[in-house]
């Protein structure tokens, strides 16, 4: 669904927590398209609003506090407004926090675009005892103001009709929105120097103000068109204003204060007293706050499981009979056809459905968390501990959830609002061992190390810690460079969850997941099916075995024979099935036609004692140690890889991460093997 050419484009701008996504979802409903901003791994949401035969394209800009281009999100929002030239901009403000949320408005007013102010959360303001005189505010701000309570779908129709009126004006005329005589005098001097030089397609007001802010981009434009004496004079004027941004911001806030002064009446009951609810006091407490956070994260995970488990159980139950039924249907066909359907396509679809149901639950739980405004508190209490590994507080949730399931962890990174932080966390999440890994580690570990198992576990966790710290430093230094800034974060007021917003969030993202991740899961699984297909039930005759044997010299470096090596590769398809794969490789499992059929039987289908015996007999302790480490740090399961793809929408990132994990696995296995050789 590409934006249609002939219908007007409306940009939706606003600071975080002003209810922007509620408005976006209410307007576009399910007619949304989720993609990336060109060349970036930042999500871009567009949608269409249709009404009596006409339509509007709506573009949801990243929520930002200003447009200084200090962060990628700000740069994206600003480039869109400057270069794509929407036909109108709706700026969201929170009526209950009017002073601060109008800041973005003052900046956007400098552009040549009609602006409409959507004054959201009128209900909250009223509860706080703030009585807002909308017509007075409208007069002071100089643009149409639409009072709204988006969470109860109030004001949407008005918003649309006001937008339509604004569209009739072709160009908005820029307004300064600053109050500071000294600064405005300087501004006028600078403005007069560029007035005749800079082409009219630019907003000269914007350029002049941004020059005072010492904005690099504005400076580039300025230098392109202005030269000689005028350039010199202007540069001198700009350097005279020390900390220009501070004066500009101050002047904007003065202007806002004045604009809202006579339009807000505080009822006497509320004496601007800062009242904090008891819950918030606990939620931001250094100790209790952490307990609450961990509890809420666990609850999130459990909610996701509760939604997923019925679907998963049914899918698991149906797979056995389904496989049998398919065998009957194709009974006359060649073996590979039967195998393709019964041992390939069916289990692959089943796994995709199970993952989809889980992801649905994860989205639902995150939808609620995002909507109520609690996440900022979680980020607050975990900021210091996370800082030690170079991350923000918000990274805590995805990392913790990863101990349960990496898929949930990767999805969880979407709550991190800074792109750099999100990408670093996304890479780190899959290093965390999920529950499925431990089953395999303990099975193989007990065979060789028995009583020394606790030591092995400590060693593994120690390597996880080192790996995480190293990866964070590596990616921040070389891959997603960005200035490290400390904690500066708004703690938004709590809101009641809005089920409509949450549902549309779940629906839009699940659809997207199904499309992208589903395709990738199917492709990889079918490739595994094809590679491990064998007509006689003997896996040694499969292509996979041939590949394993071909790479024997390489895997030998880390002490793995071709069987262990294949088990390692096959584990990517599903960690839980690794033991079954090993059983098949050692000729213990029932001779299936391909290892994807193991998804049907799950981890059963072989005798534990027999597998223990076979492994103990043919694997040396050093090789076993190498296998455990290589397995532990290898590429996560395909579900996780597919989720990385659906979250970043970037093939490059997905492949890059996978290669990184593969390398880490090889190094960890190699070191473990050398150490193993010394010990045993």
């Amino acid at each position: 669904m590409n934006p249609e050419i002939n219908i007007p484009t409306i940009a939706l701008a606003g600071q975080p927590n002003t209810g922007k996504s509620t408005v976006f979802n209410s307007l576009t409903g399910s007619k949304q398209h989720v993609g990336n901003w060109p060349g970036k791994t930042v999500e871009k949401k567009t949608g269409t609003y249709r009404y009596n035969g006409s339509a509007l394209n709506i573009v949801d800009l990243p929520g930002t506090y200003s447009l200084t281009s200090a962060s990628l999100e700000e740069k994206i929002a600003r480039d869109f407004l400057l270069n794509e030239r929407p036909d109108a901009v709706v700026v969201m403000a929170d009526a209950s926090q009017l002073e601060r949320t109008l800041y973005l408005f003052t900046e956007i007013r400098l552009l040549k675009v009609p602006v409409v102010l959507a004054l959201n959360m009128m209900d909250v303001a009223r509860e706080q005892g703030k009585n807002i005189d909308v017509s007075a505010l409208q007069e002071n701000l100089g643009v149409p103001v639409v009072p709204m309570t988006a969470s109860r779908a109030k004001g949407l129709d008005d918003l649309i009709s006001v937008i339509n009126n604004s569209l009739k004006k072709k160009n908005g005329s820029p307004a300064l929105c600053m109050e500071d005589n000294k600064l405005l005098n300087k501004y006028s001097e600078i403005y007069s120097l560029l007035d005749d030089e800079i082409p009219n397609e630019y907003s000269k007001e914007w350029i002049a103000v941004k020059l005072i802010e010492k904005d690099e981009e504005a400076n580039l434009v300025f230098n392109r068109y202005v030269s000689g004496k005028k350039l010199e004079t202007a540069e001198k004027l700009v350097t005279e204003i020390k900390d220009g941004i501070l004066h500009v911001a101050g002047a904007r806030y003065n202007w806002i204060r004045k604009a809202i002064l006579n339009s807000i009446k505080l009822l006497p009951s509320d004496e601007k007293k800062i009242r904090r609810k008891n819950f918030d006091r606990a939620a931001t407490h250094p100790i209790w706050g952490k307990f609450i956070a961990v509890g809420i994260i666990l609850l999130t995970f459990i909610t996701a499981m509760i939604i997923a488990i019925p679907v998963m159980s049914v899918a698991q139950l149906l797979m056995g009979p389904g496989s049998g039924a398919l065998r009957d249907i194709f009974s006359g066909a060649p073996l590979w056809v039967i195998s393709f359907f019964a041992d390939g396509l069916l289990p692959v679809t089943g796994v995709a459905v199970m993952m989809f149901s889980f992801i649905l639950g994860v989205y639902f739980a995150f939808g609620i968390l995002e909507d109520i405004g609690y996440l900022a508190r979680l980020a607050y209490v975990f900021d210091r501990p996370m800082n030690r590994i170079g991350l923000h507080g918000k990274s805590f949730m995805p990392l913790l959830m990863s101990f349960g399931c990496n898929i949930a962890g990767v999805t969880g990174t979407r709550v991190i609002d800074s792109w750099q932080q999100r990408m670093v966390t996304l890479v780190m999440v899959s290093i965390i061992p999920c529950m499925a890994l431990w089953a395999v580690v303990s099975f193989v570990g007990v065979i060789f190390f028995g009583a020394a198992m606790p030591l092995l576990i400590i060693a593994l966790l120690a390597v996880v810690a080192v790996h995480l710290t190293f990866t964070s430093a590596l990616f921040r230094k070389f891959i997603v460079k960005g200035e490290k800034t400390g904690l500066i974060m708004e703690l938004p007021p709590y809101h009641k969850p809005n089920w409509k917003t949450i549902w549309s969030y779940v629906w839009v993202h699940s659809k997207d997941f199904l499309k992208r991740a589903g395709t990738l899961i199917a492709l990889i699984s079918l490739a595994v099916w094809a590679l491990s297909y064998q007509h006689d039930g003997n896996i040694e005759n499969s292509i996979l075995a041939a590949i394993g044997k071909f790479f024997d010299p390489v895997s030998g470096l880390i002490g793995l024979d071709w069987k262990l090596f294949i088990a390692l590769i096959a584990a990517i398809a599903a960690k839980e099935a690794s033991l079954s794969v090993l059983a098949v490789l050692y000729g213990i499992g029932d001779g299936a036609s391909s290892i994807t059929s193991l998804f049907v039987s799950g981890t059963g289908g072989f005798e534990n004692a027999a597998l223990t015996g076979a492994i103990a007999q043919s694997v040396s302790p050093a090789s076993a140690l190498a296998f455990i480490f290589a397995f532990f740090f290898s590429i996560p399961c395909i579900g996780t890889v597919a989720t990385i793809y659906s979250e970043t929408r970037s093939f490059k990132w997905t492949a890059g991460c996978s290669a990184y994990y593969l390398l880490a696995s090889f190094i960890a296995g190699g070191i473990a093997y050398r150490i193993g050789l010394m010990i045993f």
Partner: protein
Amino acid sequence: MNTLDSLNNGEQAIIHKFSGGKSFINRVAAMGFTLEAEVTMISKRGRGPVIVYIRDSEVALGRSEAEKIIIKENLK
């Protein structure tokens, strides 16, 4: 010269100046921290981040960020 983190819970002051770099000032200015702005300490515990009230909003600041904001005339 007192910095913002020297305020005790419930105390109020006026911002006097900033000692951070350009990107720090860019970020805090957008959040409402400007010269002459009124700010109230809401929560300060141990050595962790603080929560202040400024321009209708609650904002969390790391301790070292709060140290970069210099205040004058403690209004109590």
